[in-house]
């Protein structure tokens, strides 16, 4: 399996996601990255709930 093929295989679950799912994943990932340095990320559950509610109206 060449690298290109395996790369597209890796990205497939995200690449084929509907726009709102992609948006949620992207924003959740950013929120998690912002709080990665904390051992227990404060308020992350509320942040993610807000992201979902904003993306799906």
């Amino acid at each position, binding site marked *: 399996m060449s690298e290109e093929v*395996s*790369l597209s*295989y*890796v*990205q*497939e*679950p*995200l690449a084929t*996601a*509907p726009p*709102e*799912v992609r948006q*949620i*994943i992207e924003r*959740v*990932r950013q929120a*998690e*990255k*912002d709080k*990665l*340095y*904390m051992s227990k*990320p404060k308020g*992350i*559950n509320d942040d*993610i*709930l807000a992201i*979902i*509610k904003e*993306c*799906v*109206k």
Partner: protein
Amino acid sequence: MKLISLKICNFRCFYGKMPEILLSGEEQRNTTIIHGNNGSGKTTLLNAFTWVLYEKFTAAFASEEQLVNKRAIAEAKQGESVECWVEIVWEHDDKRYRAKRECRAYKGETIEQGESKLYMQIAGEDGRWNLPQQLPEDIIGRILPESLHQYFFFDGERIERIVRSDNKVEIAEATKTMLGMKVLNRSIEHLGNAKKTLEEELKSIGNTETRQILKQKEQKEKETEKLTNRQTEISQELSHQETLKKETSNRFRDVSGAKDLEERRKELETQKTTNIDRLKQSKEALQRAISTRGYAVFLPEVTAEFRAIVNDLKQRGELTGGISQEFVNELLNSKRCICGAELHEGNHFHENVSSWLDKASIAAVEETAIRTIAQVDEIDKQTPKLWEDIDKEQANINQFRQEISRVETQLDNISEELRKNPAEEIRNLQKRLDEIEGKIRELTLEEGENKQKIADLNIEIENLGKQIAKQELNEAKQAIAQRRIAVTQDAIERLTDFRYRLDKHFRVQLEKRVQEIFSSISFKNYLPKLTDKYELTLVENTAGREAPVAASTGENQILSLSFIGGIIDRVREWTKDELMVPDSSTFPIVMDSPFGSLDEIYRRQIANIIPKLANQLVVLVTKTQWRGEVEKEMTNRIGKEYVLTYYSSKPDCEEDIIELDGIPYSLVRQSPNEYEYTAITEVEYEF
């Protein structure tokens, strides 16, 4: 993270403010070499980085509680404090960061070292330095998490510890963080929590019964329609029966012996209709009188109270006519009294006239009182008139009722007479008429009943309509909650699938790269392996079977460096592929004594490969570590070079020099005073 510079002041062996150490970050010449003999401060420089960024020290850094330079303390007066600090500037994502950590030592009976404090400034593209919005520690944590720092700022002589078995879990965790796996794990976990909350919210919306209510409403509407149709039928039937009645009564007139009675009946019926109409009118008049004027009955007490208040006011002279406030104001405005005296603010006349303002009444109040008295008089007159009208209408109603009853008795008598008439034809006609009237009564009753039913149904339909609107709102809420849950579930599934594929992809590629690096350095046929938990092991292939190797310190050092190099190299590549790796794609490596116990061949290989793997390299070396193969391999990668000169207080110390580009630089010199300290000199090269 691209390191730009390091400044130190009074930190350990460095006395006073040292010249700024600029760290090379050029692509080809990405390496900064700092030469120093044992004990000259190389480990101190490595720890200067970890102290500023994380307040951490490497294992080789002894006496952490003595950070401030001893000479600076010795020179300070008793009771004074001496400051030491380290400042690092770096670049990350087009921003420049300046972090400075300070610490003070107080010179009392003993030397007391205070807590250290971290300060930060950030400059954007415009180059202006600003204070950050967040805590400096948090900002650093985001750029390079503390848990990872030991893989980038390390002591080469102890580097093998990162692959020792007791560190396997730690390194596996750090690797996952660096590869972005931790972000994925947390994303999946927290999306799961969000999904649970959404499900709770859905429950709280409750069951929607819109369909059932809609069905009920539909049924009621059908019933109403049926009844309305029936009403039309009844109306037609009634008009038909009325016609029949008219025809039947007309036929009476043609029959001798019934004609007179029929005429009389007609007359009585006209009377009855007239009386019914009058009765109706009187009832309406009575209703009207009560609804429009009935309130007057309840007012006498209130009007009496009103009169008492007015009389009281009048008696107290508060409602008397006379001079009004408006009149006094007019005089004051015109600045002249009616007597001709001039009224100027402050003069005697002005004061006199002004004093009337309090005594004078307000014209509008007086007028309103007069008008209200007139209205109250009117109300008082209304009450007897109302009783009179009510009595009159009630008398009328009684009279009409009696009249109707009398007429009805007479009509009954006529009907009875006709029923018993000897002539069969007359008896039959009357029978027919009785039947028609019975039918009309029946239909009229049904009509009235239906009218009530339709009114009730309409109220019910209206209420059901309101319920449906409410339910529809809930349904909309429910639908959105369900959609949110479904989308979240989809995100979780996709991320889980992605994590699985990414994990496999990363491990295979990382393992491959670590193997490549390791085999390019080591002459042994050992193979680094990465388990599914990201634990690193070394195996050898004996007769087609893989067996773990009891690796030497040197081999573990090579393995550790291969691993760090492999990660840096892969992260750089994966960032290009826009995979979910951390934002940092640039990592510096700061190594102290990197070639500790390695043989010549290994030293050469590592010296050759490390500058290629790291984005930026800072190497702290002794003369013996540098000379020969290492120097040869690294020279064309050097962007900056410094020498640490150790000033010894020992009277007969042996001085040492290093020759760089033909110029001698002191490594050890005699101190001009009783203190030992280190100075930093930049090597002037024409690169």
